């Protein structure tokens, strides 16, 4: 009998489908199990392939024999209509217990076979792994390249995170940018027109990495003085409110009613002291995103230097964070509200002036 003849029918009268993985090896799989995969199902119905060893269905590249085995296990269980929902759930929970690398391979393979339920299952498992991790942790877990600039890494986190480190680093960026600009301006004789570079950071990066020497991109004039004045105003108003507020806290909380007290409460000491800590926090973030709309008008070489400096700072920050926190917390309670100054200061004094935030 030639091998081209129809599939050998086993004594149980089962039908089998032949599948071939990219490494060349061919497997024989029960028909109902294989048909559970939409991609295989379609191949069979549309092209008639898979009925014998010579006409095995070629599986996509991402499906290697080991992974195929897993996928077929999944299909074998789920294609049985008799299982209850609870049984399926239990199976699924056990099924996805594997290392991250394998989970990724499985997801990719399931995706290429269009096996949506399995993609869904493995994706959710991956999401549970990723949840709550920092970008560095995610990079480590999945062995991903670290190919973004420091600033690119921080930018999206600006408004999303509560992490004081991120806010600190963003602030540092803003400060440094300003410093560099001021330094640039002093060098530059013609300061008449302050130009704004509105290119994205990505553009700048490609520029640095050997793009066009001429500066492309839109340049518009903007009134920078207005920005600065606005910031000064903000600073003044926030300062004055802070000062008033402190006076208020020291004054005895005056209840306005001398009569029936049943339904009226008088604020306690503990509440007022809590207010003192949080009052500062309301105003400093405002300072922060004013800083963040500073325009990028810096020499790219300086930008790299800035990146390196901040990366360095970030590393130092991450290493002695617990100590710093202690320091800040102890400073915070004694410090009065102090206006932030813009001159380049060392990290120590920056910490102390920010100490009140914690």
């Amino acid at each position, binding site marked *: 009998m030639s091998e081209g003849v129809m599939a050998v029918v086993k004594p149980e009268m089962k039908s089998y489908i032949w599948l071939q993985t990219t490494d060349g090896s061919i497997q024989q799989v029960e028909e109902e199990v294989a048909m559970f995969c939409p991609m295989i199902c379609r191949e069979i119905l549309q092209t008639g392939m898979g009925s014998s060893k010579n006409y095995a269905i070629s599986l996509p590249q*991402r499906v290697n024999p080991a992974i195929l085995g897993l996928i077929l296990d999944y299909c074998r269980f789920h294609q049985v209509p008799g299982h209850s929902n609870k049984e399926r759930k239990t199976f699924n929970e056990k099924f996805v217990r594997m290392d991250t*690398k394998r989970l*990724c391979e499985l*997801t*990719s393979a*399931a*995706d*290429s076979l269009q096996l*949506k339920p399995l*993609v869904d299952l493995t*994706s*959710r498992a*991956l*999401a549970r792994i*990723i*949840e*709550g991790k920092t*970008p560095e942790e*995610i990079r480590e877990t999945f*062995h*991903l*390249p670290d*190919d*973004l600039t420091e600033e*690119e890494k*921080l930018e999206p*986190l*600006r*408004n*999303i*995170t*509560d992490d004081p480190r991120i806010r600190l680093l963003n602030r540092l960026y803003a400060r440094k940018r300003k410093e560099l600009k001021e330094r640039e301006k002093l060098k530059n004789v013609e300061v008449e027109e302050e130009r704004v570079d509105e290119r994205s950071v990505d553009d700048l990066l490609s520029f640095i990495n050997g793009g066009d020497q001429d500066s492309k991109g839109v340049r518009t004039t903007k009134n920078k003085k207005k920005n600065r004045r606005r910031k000064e105003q903000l600073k003044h*108003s*926030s300062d004055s*409110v802070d000062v*008033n*507020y402190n006076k*208020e806290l020291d*004054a005895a909380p*005056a*209840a*306005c*009613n*001398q*009569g*029936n007290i*049943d*339904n*009226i*409460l008088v*604020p306690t000491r503990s*509440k*007022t002291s*809590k*207010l003192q800590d*949080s*009052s500062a*926090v309301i105003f400093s*973030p405002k300072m922060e*995103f004013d800083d963040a709309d500073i325009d990028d008008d810096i020499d790219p070489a300086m930008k790299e230097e800035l990146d390196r400096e901040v990366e360095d700072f970030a590393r130092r920050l991450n290493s002695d964070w617990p100590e710093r926190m202690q320091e800040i917390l102890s400073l915070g309670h004694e410090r009065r509200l102090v206006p932030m100054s813009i001159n380049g200061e060392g990290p120590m004094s920056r910490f102390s002036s920010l100490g009140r935030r914690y």
Partner: protein
Amino acid sequence: MEREVGLDQLGDLALHIILSKLGPEDTVRVSCVSRRLRLSTSEDSLWALFCFQDLQLSTPQDHQGNPASSFKAAYQLWREAFAMYPWPLVKRVKRCWDKLKNWLSNDFPEVEATLRSGASESDIQQLETRLKVKLPLPTRLLYRFHDGQERTDEGHSSTWLGSSLGIIGGYSFYNHLVNVYLLPISQVIEGTRMVIRHLGFSSRSKYIVVAASAYRPKKFFLNCTNGQLYVGTSNLPTDGEMIQCVPNALIRSVHDLHGDQQQDAMLLWLEEHGRRLENGIIKVCEEGNVRSISLFPEVPPLCSTAVTNGVQVRASAAFVPELANLQDSAEKYLFAYSIRMSLLPGGCIIDGMTFSSCQLNWRHWIIRANEAIISDVNGEAVIGQFPLLHPGENEFVYESCTPLSSSSGSVEGSFTFVPGRLADPKGRPFDVQVARFPLQKPDYVF
């Protein structure tokens, strides 16, 4: 040599599932991992999902309704605009306003139109500077979304219509007409200063006026220190007496920027109001040609219904804090009640005979404080009227009030009707039941 399949190469479907399950904050962290992942996380359909989940947005727009270039941009604009607040609180405050506005757009669009657009941070700061207070966080956010209500200015008869658009609503009985508006910051400042001047509040008190009625002096005060809301009683001018409006135990962390547990009385109060409107507990009522939100409940258990011989009577009461007098033990609280009577389409049926009209002659009330009967009165007419009922007409509605020494009680009674008319009775008088309805000082005082 096989290359390892990275997280960034899983395929679009898988990545979309992973990122949607992770949510916006984790997605942003993923976008900081590598260049390829940054691309995957920029897909706008993902951000459309987040915008919908967090903010119920179906088109990309910023918090003032201006269109944004993409859902991702919109989400970013929202986060930037509210960066100084805990995001869960922002979402909660938005949901609170959305619930109110959804109801208004269906049932009372004239009130929705009075909602002013959000105050800016500097507007709020001005209030805090001028009044020397610090607003609780949830209240700040409430103002960021809407700066109170616009009220057409006094002077003409059309004003009266204008002043029935208070979002909190009210009631009227005898000559006591109340309709409560949420005040914009400018009026909060002015109103609070007036209260300090005229009512002798200390200029350093932390109470600010946040809601008030146009006619009768009903004023709501927010205590900025503890976040509780109070309403002035009849002793407000003399003793600064106020009743708290929200259960104390629910108020927490009003000035705490961290965590997501913050709730102050304003937020809780408005959430409760939204809930009552949404569930039809209170509705828009029309009196004369004027529509307003009525605080008399419309559904059981607070509203009772009884049908006798074809005459239906619905009855419910509302607590009237501004006329309470906590120093008077006998008449500490005042409750207004609304009685609505109508003749069902089948007409008035007595002993198998049908009559096409009937008229009220007497009333009988039994008023209880707790379970003890404190009043058992008989009298002619209701508020001096003898309503004549025909089948299928609109309800005849009237309001009256009763004082009560305790915070809990009830009213029940009956009306004596004659079939036909009083001037021309067609049969014997019969009693129509007014089923018992509660007088209950509520947990949330409006």
